[in-house]
């Protein structure tokens, strides 16, 4: 029962937010927080490795809002899930990471409106916590998986403990993609 053997629980499934082909040889899962500055730094790194690896990479994002450290993180995560309900998860995901310093509720509702989502519905989704449970499910799965801060990455189900640096991340992904 060693934490260092932490593995992704549950595995990637239809409930996840996925970019890239289902049969890609490498799956990168990020547990992230939209208000976390380290996640903000990781955002372009993920895009860079996606460009480098193309169809060899499947990327999955799961919510891990550190709500006590980051007061806007929970609502930002809920808004991403609300956008997903309207088929706009990834555009919202990108907007949130590109606007980490503007995550007040009215900002979030504005991003929804800019994506063509009804602003009143988006506001109500936040106010009523319609997607709170969905976010919490991700959080609980992260704790079980051995998430130890944000961002935490898993490569083919195994926690990546290497540097948060594009070259290091890419090296780890490429070696996971290469048969022994």
């Amino acid at each position: 029962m060693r934490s260092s053997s932490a593995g992704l629980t549950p595995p990637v499934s239809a409930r996840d937010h996925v970019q890239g082909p289902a049969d890609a040889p490498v799956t990168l899962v990020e547990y992230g927080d939209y208000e976390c500055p380290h996640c903000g730094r990781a955002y372009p790194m993920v895009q860079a490795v996606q460009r480098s690896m193309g169809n060899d990479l499947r990327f999955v994002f799961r919510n891990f809002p550190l709500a006590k450290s980051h007061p806007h993180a929970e609502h930002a995560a809920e808004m991403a899930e609300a956008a997903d309900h309207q088929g706009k998860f990834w555009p919202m995901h990108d907007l949130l990471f590109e606007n980490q310093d503007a995550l007040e509720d009215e900002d979030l509702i504005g991003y929804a409106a800019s994506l063509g989502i009804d602003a009143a519905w988006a506001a109500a989704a936040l106010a009523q916590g319609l997607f709170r449970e969905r976010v919490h499910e991700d959080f609980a799965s992260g704790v079980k998986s051995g998430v130890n801060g944000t961002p935490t990455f898993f490569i083919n189900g195994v926690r990546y403990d290497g540097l948060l640096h594009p070259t290091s991340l890419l090296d780890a992904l490429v070696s996971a993609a290469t048969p022994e």
Partner: protein
Amino acid sequence: MSSLLSAGTPAPDFTLPRGPDAKTRLADSRGHPVILAFYPADWSPVCGDELALFNECLPEFQRYRAELLGISVDGVWCHKAYRDARHFDFHLLADFEPKGAVSRAYGAYRAQDGFSERALFVLDGAGVIRWSYLSPVSVNPGADGILAALDALK
């Protein structure tokens, strides 16, 4: 390096200050699980910080009625400033005088460095250690081992 107390060992009792005017005695926590989180020092970076993660995990721990106690050699005023700044909703105990005595009793003291190991213990309601884990000082262990140990208590 010291040897960490292992599962099956009765947890050594202690009384440590949890603030300028209050003390916590381990034996007063019988009847529910206790998580002891020894850590090297207050004020490590926020997002990757082990205690910030555990703070977020408190609702998960509470499902098992488990109480979390953080322990380091920092003094009570340092702990208070740290706890207030990070909005921690659990107590930090000061293993300050005699320095590191409780950490030593659990085999969780780095004499060469003068601070506690990054070590976790899960105690059952009878005060017996049911799981312990020594993490490399620089690696945040996460909470999955704690949850698995709490699961095994049921």
